[in-house]
């Protein structure tokens, strides 16, 4: 008996080590367009297809964000294709589903690199995945523009391929900390993260600024993305009785579930989250009123309120039947910048050269985006300038309560 159970447990431990929480989904690749007949006419024409790698969590826990991501990318590419594509060929999207898992992200990146017609990558969505694809893309000089990876360290590793169209958590963190202390008058703060690169990084930034502001009552806790029962944690929070409960959680569904349990335990603290929770479906509708009055920060404006984005919002709604989701506008902007870059790079022997695209994208200056701000990349690939916005949940929507402009880093 002793031996039997022991051997079974040994087998079990070995198995659980190799059964991942979710199995990788094969990459969905669009079939290459049939080679168009050569037409030796005026403008230069590409010899082969031109492909853009789009990487994000298209399945799994963050699938809702991933779908918004993909929708916005398709919208941008289709607009270009309607105008004739680039160099006489239609632009194709190669989908790479990374499920926000760094290991899966690396496989996706290898796939992009090994296809010579992929000349640029949009994504990944999460900081953890971005961190793992960067060294792979760097080797192939394949440019990357992430719409939403906010971890500050990503830009500090010397990778030339790295670019982002969002401010970083080195700005978002202090903005959040300043907001809760100066605007909400917080004296004590609990911080919960989900152990992801993004959440831990943002938590660190917030904690640092809070300490600089003289807040001493700070408690930090972690959950995992699989957790569903937060009662023990929230009971601790209730005992701490902080003014503010930061929930740096990537998935708004999970943050909403936490909010519901927080309500059922009678925890007084005001919930505050980062950019990942700027999601109406998950954080407001999914929470069934439990997030009323909560605050979230976001790395861009309420896209519905930006005049330049009107056309984008209408087109998105009519095509996909819903408002553009969390990072949709950022994705659309990133894709347009990449395509402008490819256009600027020109052809070499009928081919688009990855290095030329990288240089053209890196040189982007004052690109007029639908985010309402001109986009220029810094030497490190960060967005120069940018604004962090604060929103509060009121009824069924986010209401902007503050905006903080950031200096370029």
């Amino acid at each position, binding site marked *: 008996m002793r031996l*039997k159970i022991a051997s079974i447990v040994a087998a079990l431990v070995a198995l659980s080590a190799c059964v991942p929480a979710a199995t990788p989904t094969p990459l969905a690749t669009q079939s290459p367009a049939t080679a168009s007949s050569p037409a030796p006419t005026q403008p230069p024409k590409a010899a082969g297809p031109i492909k853009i790698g789009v990487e994000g969590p298209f399945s799994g826990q963050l*699938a809702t964000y991933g779908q918004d991501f993909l929708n916005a990318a398709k919208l941008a590419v289709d607009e270009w294709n309607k105008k004739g594509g680039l160099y006489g060929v239609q632009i194709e999207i190669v989908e790479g589903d990374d499920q926000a898992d760094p290991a899966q992200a690396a496989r996706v990146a290898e796939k992009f690199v090994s296809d010579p017609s992929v000349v640029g990558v949009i994504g990944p969505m999460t900081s953890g995945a971005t961190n793992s694809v960067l060294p792979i893309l760097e080797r192939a000089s394949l440019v990357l523009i992430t719409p939403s990876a906010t971890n500050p360290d990503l830009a500090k590793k010397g990778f030339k391929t790295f670019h982002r169209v969002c401010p970083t958590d080195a700005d978002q963190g202090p903005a959040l900390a300043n907001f809760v202390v100066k605007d909400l008058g917080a004296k004590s703060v609990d911080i919960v993260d989900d152990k992801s690169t993004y959440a831990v990084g943002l938590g660190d930034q917030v904690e640092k600024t809070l300490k600089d502001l003289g807040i001493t009552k700070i408690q930090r806790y972690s*959950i995992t993305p699989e957790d569903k029962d937060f009662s*023990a944690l929230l009971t601790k929070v209730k005992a701490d009785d902080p003014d503010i409960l930061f929930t740096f959680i990537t998935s708004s569904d999970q943050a909403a579930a936490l909010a519901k*349990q927080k*309500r059922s335990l009678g925890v007084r603290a005001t919930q505050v989250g980062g950019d990942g929770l700027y999601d109406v479906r998950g954080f407001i509708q999914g929470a*069934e009123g439990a997030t009323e009055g909560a605050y979230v920060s976001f790395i861009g404006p309420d896209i519905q309120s930006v005049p330049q984005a009107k056309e984008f919002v209408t087109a998105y709604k009519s095509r996909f039947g819903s408002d553009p989701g969390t990072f949709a506008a950022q994705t659309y902007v990133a894709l347009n910048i990449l395509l402008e870059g490819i256009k600027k790079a020109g052809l070499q022997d009928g081919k688009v050269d990855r290095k030329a695209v990288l240089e053209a994208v890196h040189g982007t200056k004052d690109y007029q985006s639908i985010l309402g701000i001109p986009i220029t990349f810094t030497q490190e690939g960060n967005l120069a300038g940018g604004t962090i916005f604060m929103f509060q949940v009121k009824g069924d929507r986010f209401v902007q309560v503050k905006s903080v402009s950031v200096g370029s880093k």
Partner: protein
Amino acid sequence: MAQIPQQLVNGITLGCIYGLIALGYSMVYGILEILNFAHGDVFMVGAYVGWGVLSALLVGGVLAAPAAVVFALMMLASMTVCGLIGLAMEYLAYRPLRSAPRLAPLLAALGVSLILEYAVAILLGTKPKIILVEPLLPSSLQVDIAGTTISFVRILIVAVSVLLMFALDRLVNSTRLGRAIRATAQDREAAQYMGINTDRIISLTFFLGAILAGAGGVLVSLFYTQLDFVMGWTAGLKAFTAAVLGGIGNIRGAMLGGLLLGLVESFGMAFISSSYRDVIAFAILILLLIFRPQGVLGESLPEKV
């Protein structure tokens, strides 16, 4: 210190759920000496069935029937579907392997587990499902005793689990059928000679375990308000730990093990570290296997069921 009563409430709620799932593990192990690792996934399917019924009866944010009726329907549908899965699983995956080496049914269990998980993933997608519980169990339904909050869903979980566990305990210990189950667990061959249809008893054991898992799935989904297709894996491992903790094969042991594990996890999170919940649970499992493999209530040669 102020959090002790609340953590006690948390631990008991969690423990009842673990106990409910652990029973299925324990009964199947008691009778066949196999670990049915697909059991956690039966629980997951149960949660999805409950979600399906609730979503179907939720028209425009309003329940189509009184809350009690909706809850009863959720339980009934989930327990029926899970019971059938339990029967099918035993008949298709385990019965053909009954005389095979011990590793074969274990691998079959993992196969069934993956089949259930990915059937749900393919049919319903990999994105977690959010359960809108507010119309069924309004958050205002809760009592507050000196800072300790007990929501109605917790009372429901404890009440339903205790009721089901009590019913099972009665069934096994004081009915003819129960005697047949115990006899089969003790010595299958001898039971057969006594005229017991052991195949049917084994099927029944799987059925009973699966309907308890189904009930657990519904209760958990109302509490967690979020479902995903891999939730059965961890839940199954925890329930297995609970079953071993109590003495695998022992019904009252499984209940006690569940309760102990729930309490240890809650207090471990409160007083040791919030992020090492699973570490605490599995450390207990390992220590137990080294020092007391027969569990708290188990004897060296237990009369298993």
